[in-house]
């Protein structure tokens, strides 16, 4: 388990495009972003609990400045686990580490009229 990624396309709404966790990603996502939901950029390290491992909540605006049909810049939300999260200590470092892992996927799907399935 290393990454959960939630974002939206131009025409389709917010959904999970990648889920390396087993099972439903939403409870994990909620636990990571709890209390910081509205901020436009987020780096937040979340300590391990009985139910969940340590993780990093990361949010940044689409690096290419792509916008949804209402004109809002598209945000990318990540929950990062394990060794991948170890040296992330800021939004900027998170963007450098994580974005290359999903950039091509997003380029392929963001203009589709309907959303792709997770891990699709």
């Amino acid at each position, binding site marked *: 388990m290393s990454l959960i990624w939630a974002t939206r396309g131009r025409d*389709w709404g*917010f*959904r*999970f495009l990648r889920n390396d966790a087993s099972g*439903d990603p*939403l409870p994990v996502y909620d636990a990571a972003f709890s209390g910081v939901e509205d901020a436009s950029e987020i780096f937040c390290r979340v300590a391990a609990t009985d139910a969940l491992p340590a993780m990093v909540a990361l949010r940044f605006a689409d690096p290419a400045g792509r916008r949804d049909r209402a004109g809002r810049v598209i945000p990318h939300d990540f929950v990062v686990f394990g060794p991948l999260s170890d040296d992330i200590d800021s939004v900027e470092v998170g963007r450098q580490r994580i974005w290359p892992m999903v950039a091509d996927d997003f380029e392929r799907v963001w203009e589709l009229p309907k959303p792709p399935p997770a891990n699709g």
Partner: protein
Amino acid sequence: MDVSRALEQHIAVFGEGGSGKTVLLSSFYGATQEPQYRKQSLFHVVADNMGQGARLHRNYLGMKNSAQVPATTRFTGTSYSFSIKLKDGAGAKAMKDKPFDALRLVWHDYPGEWFEQDVSGPEETQRRVDTFRSLLGSDVALLLVDAQRLLDNAGQEERYLKSLFANFLNGLLSLKDDLLEDGKPLVEFPRIWVLGLSKSDLLPDLDVFAFRDLLIEKGADDLDQLREVLAGLVEAKDALSVGEDFVLLSSAKFDTDRIEVTERIGVDMILPLAAMLPFERHVRWAQAKQLQGKVVETLLRGAGPLAAVLVGTKSRFLGPVGLLLNIVGPSVAEAAGLAGDKLREANSEAMAKQDNLRATLTRFAMDLDRGEEERILLRSLR
């Protein structure tokens, strides 16, 4: 606050992702927190949950001061409860004669894509069902038509309207089994579905009549289908008005580097619509004998107390049984018929006596009349 002393009205705002639901909610609440509003108004709008209030206010200030739109609503629906707390008027004694001393508005917000696409997993599925159950317990539903999408489809508006109404209709159908218990039609259900033109500042030449005509010209068949589906969910199908009321809405004027939150259209109609429209309409339906049995009891439960305040009688509560026996009592009929000069007189009298509850409700009714004069509101004649 004692719940029994507050008259509660629910409003459900439906719209696609990006159609401006959260912006509208933030604009509504933020405006009520401005010093001028607080000074001029006879009441305060107070968020029952402080965290929610702070969030909406932050959204509003972000638009006003930094030209930032609120964050996209993700994965969760939220019900925002606002108390309309009256300022002190003629004193506590007068208020004790009232059947209620506050209004509460519950505004349901949700991620727009929940009607447009599949959800991501079991938790979101459950949240979607729970949210729509609470949405469908509302008195009034506001279905947003996005002016930006109309502009994007200029000349072919039917394409957008077809997709808007079809998505909504299919969303409802897919949830039908989860929403109806044992397949029984719902008694509590929004009976009034107002069509609202959001971002209406983008179409400055379109008044509410032109908006209605556009929908009839380019979306009548799709609207008929939606009406049929909604009627299939509800008991007493005659007591349902879908797409018979129209309102123009604009939460703010959006320029490239500026959001002018004082340039709103129709946002001040929302509280009067939520408070007064169900009352007016339900009483009219009862008088026309379009309501029967449990539906009368449910729909008219707030009518007696509201009527008592509007006509200034001391009768505290006609009660559902009284309503069933009389269908509509004299004070209710009189209150529902208050209009024009009589309404203004009632308002002046209430203002003179510092009867702030009555003054507020009569003002709401006058606001709706004003909305019609200014061609931003069009109410059904049925």
